[in-house]
Every structure is written in structure tokens, then in C-alpha cells.
């Protein structure tokens, strides 16, 4: 499953965001079907005129649900096999969303003006008094952040509640349950993607699903048209196996 979070107005397009949606795509479903609107799985709707002040409890509930589907699974019938019962398990492959969605899901920063602007590397900025904004050194590369750092930060609780003065601008505590339940853990650095055009196409979710499960199209093929009638001719004297075996090699 590829999970995604987004905000949308309910009932009235001119209104502000009135609800936050979390939905997922099943990657087992074929490529042309999985991202259709009717096949997206709505996992939760946060009602209200404003978005919630803290997203953590909502995300924790969604992640516990995912963890349960991995650990315990659920019994369900299969319509394609005469309603035969089986146990389905589910794995969270990827977390996508638009910028506010990912920022809410992982409690990352929404803007690039923070001390830790990037949630994937250790680029740290400082406040330039002349420009009155946070600037970053133009270095070639910064050391990347790893998932272990995130989990270490969730396990460490200091008196101030943060690891340092400029703590990592993130809180992945809600994903701790996935990390401890999944075999091999859940890599919060590599298993999330931000998609600026999320409303339009959902590029990251689509492509990740296609990479993970293949992009096989299962639309019915059009009826075959015979373009070479010569191919339909039947050879009156088919070559037998004996002929092939006893054929002399041309020199």
C-alpha cells in the first residue's frame, strides 16, 4: 500500500480546507486501476473548519492500523474465488503527500527558512541580519540524515523535550510502531516522498507503486486484426521432428 495525506474542502470549493484526508493505493491492483478515484482507499477524515493543531494522535492511530494489518492481518472473503476466506496482510511501502501533508505526517518544516531546512540532510543555516532571513552555506554536499538518527531522537527525551537547542525539525514518533513491527524496520528517510503537484497527478505515489509492483496494464486488448494473411496459410507438408534430426548440416 502507498499511503498519502492531503487536505481538501468538503462540500464547498470556495471554502478553506475543511477536512484532511488520508488515503492509500493498493499496489497489488494493476497500474491502470490502482490510482483511480474509486479504487483509492480512504483511511481517515479529520473533520473541522481548520486543520488540527497536532497531527500526531491521528497519525498514530493510522499507523497502528497499518501495523495491525502487518502483524495480525484480517480475515476476509475473496470474490474472485467464490468468497473463499483468507487472511490478508498489508505493508506500508511509501508515504507521500503534498508539502503540508508530509509536513504534518512527519512533523517536518513546511518552509525552507528554518534552521534545519532539509529533512534529508544536515544542512544548517544561520540568520543573516542584513538579509533578515536564514541563509545556508553554499557547500558542495551535506552529510545525509539517516533513519537511525530519527529513531534515536524519538527514544531520547530530555528535560526540555527536545534533543538540543536546534532539534531536528521532525517528530517521527508516530512511525515508531511501524519501525518496531516491520521486519527490517521502517526507513523514514527513504520511504517518504513530497509531491508538489499532489493534487494534479500524484506523481510520487504512482511512480513508486509502479516501481514496486510493476506497471502492467490490464486493459482488455482490442480484437486482433490480421495484417498478414500469409501467416494464416497452413503448410501442407509440415517439417517433422525426424527431418530436423536427420537434416544434414550445410557446409
Amino acid at each position: 500500500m502507498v499511503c498519502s495525506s492531503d487536505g481538501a474542502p468538503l462540500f464547498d470549493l470556495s471554502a478553506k480546507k475543511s477536512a484532511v484526508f488520508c488515503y492509500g493505493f493498493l499496489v497489488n491492483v494493476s497500474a491502470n486501476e490502482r490510482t483511480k478515484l474509486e479504487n483509492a482507499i480512504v483511511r481517515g477524515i479529520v473533520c473541522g473548519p481548520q486543520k488540527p493543531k497536532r497531527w500526531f494522535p491521528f497519525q498514530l492511530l493510522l499507523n497502528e492500523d497499518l501495523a495491525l494489518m502487518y502483524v495480525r492481518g484480517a480475515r476476509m472473503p475473496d470474490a474472485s474465488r467464490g468468497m473463499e476466506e483468507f487472511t490478508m496482510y498489508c505493508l506500508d511501502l511509501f508515504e507521500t503527500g503534498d508539502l503540508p501533508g508530509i509536513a504534518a505526517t512527519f512533523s517536518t518544516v513546511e518552509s525552507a527558512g528554518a534552521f534545519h531546512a532539509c529533512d534529508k540532510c544536515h544542512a544548517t543555516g544561520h540568520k543573516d541580519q542584513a538579509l533578515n532571513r536564514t541563509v545556508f552555506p553554499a557547500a558542495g554536499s551535506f552529510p545525509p540524515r539517516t533513519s537511525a538518527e530519527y529513531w534515536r531522537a524519538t527514544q531520547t527525551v530530555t528535560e526540555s523535550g527536545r534533543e538540543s537547542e536546534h532539534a531536528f525539525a521532525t517528530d517521527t514518533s508516530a512511525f515508531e510502531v511501524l519501525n518496531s513491527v516491520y521486519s527490517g524496520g521502517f526507513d523514514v528517510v527513504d520511504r517518504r516522498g513530497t509531491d508538489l503537484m499532489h493534487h494534479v497527478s500524484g506523481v510520487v505515489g504512482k511512480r513508486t507503486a509502479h516501481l514496486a509492483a510493476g506497471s502492467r496494464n490490464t486493459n482488455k486488448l482490442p480484437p486482433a486484426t490480421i495484417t498478414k494473411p500469409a501467416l494464416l496459410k497452413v503448410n501442407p507438408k509440415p517439417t517433422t521432428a525426424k527431418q530436423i534430426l536427420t537434416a544434414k548440416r550445410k557446409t
Partner: protein
Amino acid sequence: MESDDADFFFDPELEYSGDDSELPGVVAAHEAVATRFVPWVVKRQHSSPYPCTAVLLSTVGTTLDLNQPFIAGIFHEPATGAHVTVGRFLDATTRWQSRNKISDTALGQMFALLQWTVPEAAVPTVRQVTYLVDQVMGGGVEVHDACPAEDCVLFRDSEFEGGQQYVTLQRCPECSASRYKGASGASPLPVPAGRLFMHLPLRFTLRNIMTSEELAAQMPIDLTVLLPLCTVLRYHSRSLSHTGTPTEKVARREAQRRVERRRLGRQACPAGAADGRYGVLVRRSPTV
């Protein structure tokens, strides 16, 4: 010598507590740092893959047919997108109701007026609509209310042993805001003051998907897809998430050796080196 397998697992015990806490320099730091562990173990009563009684919508008969034409007798062919069906009428009515903040009672009165005006129209009653919504949503949605002040917690019980067990609380455990509004004339029961979260558990939504034959035919696991995927994910997460990049891996190993060296430096060096801090470098196996 330690095997490299020890590096494959991130061990917070190794990092934050242990023998190096005896060193005077790090004692103060360890006092400020508390380590918390949540045992993510499924509760015993929830460990069955049957989480609830199965509700199959196909066996539940509703008297309300959403594809029925709203005004019967005008056309006899099956309804298309151009026709007003009961479902489309309800869709438009619900939007109009939410936009203008109209109560269910007033909506029912409007339905009755419409039925009085157009007797041949198949106007549903509000009771029918409520029953339909209950049938569609029944067993599929769990509604939880959040802390009204700051959305600190959801008042719910986790199905894990170490999870949050807040369903019986009357106040938020973090900010102690009151969970309920008082009883009023409209509702004798206390009303949740915070925002509502409609959670659709995956077990229900996936079950609904598996009742569709076209989708269910695609859902059985393709092992040629899943096995490489699991291998890649497993290798990927083992190699990156628990040990970090190779640079960080080396740094972590060095830090670990530094800690071990400091710890051994306090002991008497068996090889009799002058400086105990380098004891680990000249240490020999006791059998030699």
C-alpha cells in the same frame, strides 16, 4: 573481536546506557536523558484475525434504491446520468443541507412538502436515509473525538498493550481540557467538544474491495513481485536504517571503540602497558 553483525542492529542500550555511564563526564548527561520504550505487542483480545463480526453489505436489503428514478412513470428505460435518480437527489440535497446548515428535522419537513406537492416522486424519508448511512458505514467507520483544546490526544483505546488507553477519560491527559460539552435540551447525553476523526480501518475497506470480483482477481500476491520486493526492502532497511551510511557506520564503530577503550582504561592492563588508556590496543587473549 566483535563480529560485524553487531553493527547491523541499532541498540539504544549500547548508545545511551551501560558501562560508560560510570564515567564522571557523562553522568550528568545521562541524568537528563530518559529512555522510553513502548512495547508494541498486540493485546490478547485483539490478536485474532477476526476483529469483529463480518458485515456483508450484499446480504443486507435496503428498501431505498438509489438508482431508482426520482419521479417514476416518466421514463421506462434504465436511468442514465441525465436522469434524476434518488441517489442524485440525495447527493444534491445533502450538499444543500450542509451549505445552508439545515437540521435533519427541517430537511424531513421539506421532504414531506415535496412529497405532498409531487405525489408520484419517490422522496425518501430521513429515517430511510439514516438507515442507509448506517448500513453503508456500519462496521466500517470508527469515530473518535479529539482533545478540544489542542488536539493533544484521541480519546480511544489502542489495540496494542503499550498504546494509549484513553477511551474512558473525561479530561485530556496532557492539557486537562474537558472532553464533553454539557448536556443541553437538544441532547440529553454529553456531546464531545473536540473535533471528530472518522477512521476507516483497513480491515473493513479492504474487505469491501475484496467483494469486487474484478479487483479481487488482481489482489492475490504475485510472488514474482513480492519476493524481490521483500528482499530489497529488507536489505535496504537493514543496511541503511539501522546502521546508517558507511560513513556513519565507521563513525559509530569508532565511537563504540572509544567507549570501550575508556572503560578498559580504568582496569589494570593485563599486558602491563604503561598507559592504561591504550590497553585495548596491546591486550592479548588470556590463553596466550
